[in-house]
């Protein structure tokens, strides 16, 4: 079974600071990787995804993530955060090539951006 670890429970940054949120997964096979964001009181929105190819993927709102297979990691980055990035961020994986496998989520990282 897959599992996902997000190392930071709560991150507090000032506006314009750079962001990196860690995500590691455990699974021996090929996975699809996702970052979802949940703004306060809202539903989950997909930020970016990795299926195959270039391990550096770019998503919406200036976010990017890098898949490092040897480290089983898929860290999320943004060079300069804004107050509006305050939200909960979830890393998720599912098994690639296996049909409709559900997502396995990490426990989330709460990002608070202060002025």
């Amino acid at each position: 079974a897959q599992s996902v670890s997000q190392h930071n429970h709560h991150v507090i940054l000032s506006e314009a600071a750079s962001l990196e949120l860690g995500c590691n997964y455990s699974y021996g096979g090929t996975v699809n990787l996702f970052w979802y964001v949940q703004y306060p009181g809202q539903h989950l929105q997909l930020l970016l995804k990795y299926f195959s190819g270039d391990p550096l993927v770019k998503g919406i709102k200036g976010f990017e993530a890098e898949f490092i297979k040897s480290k089983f990691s898929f860290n999320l980055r943004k060079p300069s955060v804004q107050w509006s990035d305050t939200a909960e961020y979830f890393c998720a994986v599912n098994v690639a090539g296996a049909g409709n496998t559900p997502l396995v989520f990490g426990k989330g990282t709460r990002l608070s951006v202060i002025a």
Partner: protein
Amino acid sequence: DTAVSQTPKYLVTQMGNDKSIKCEQNLGHDTMYWYKQDSKKFLKIMFSYNNKELIINETVPNRFSPKSPDKAHLNLHINSLELGDSAVYFCASSLSGAHYEQYFGPGTRLTVT
């Protein structure tokens, strides 16, 4: 147009009651899911349906019964509600296949008193 919709958005009820949450998607997807988000924001899969057939049933009490009348709908019925059922329930949908993302509904916040 709402892609994945859920009703109701909020549900407050007493222990022992039976309640249903409805989910509909207009994306033409063939796979639908129910996830539970607990008070610590942890999201976990409950059920997965493909073409109206149950394909995944995680360790969920049998008081929870999903029903999929067609590919666009996946409803969740909960019998004999307990305090621990209080959570946000998210419906999601996707195409089947190796590489598709899931689209989530707005969630239903269930509070059992």
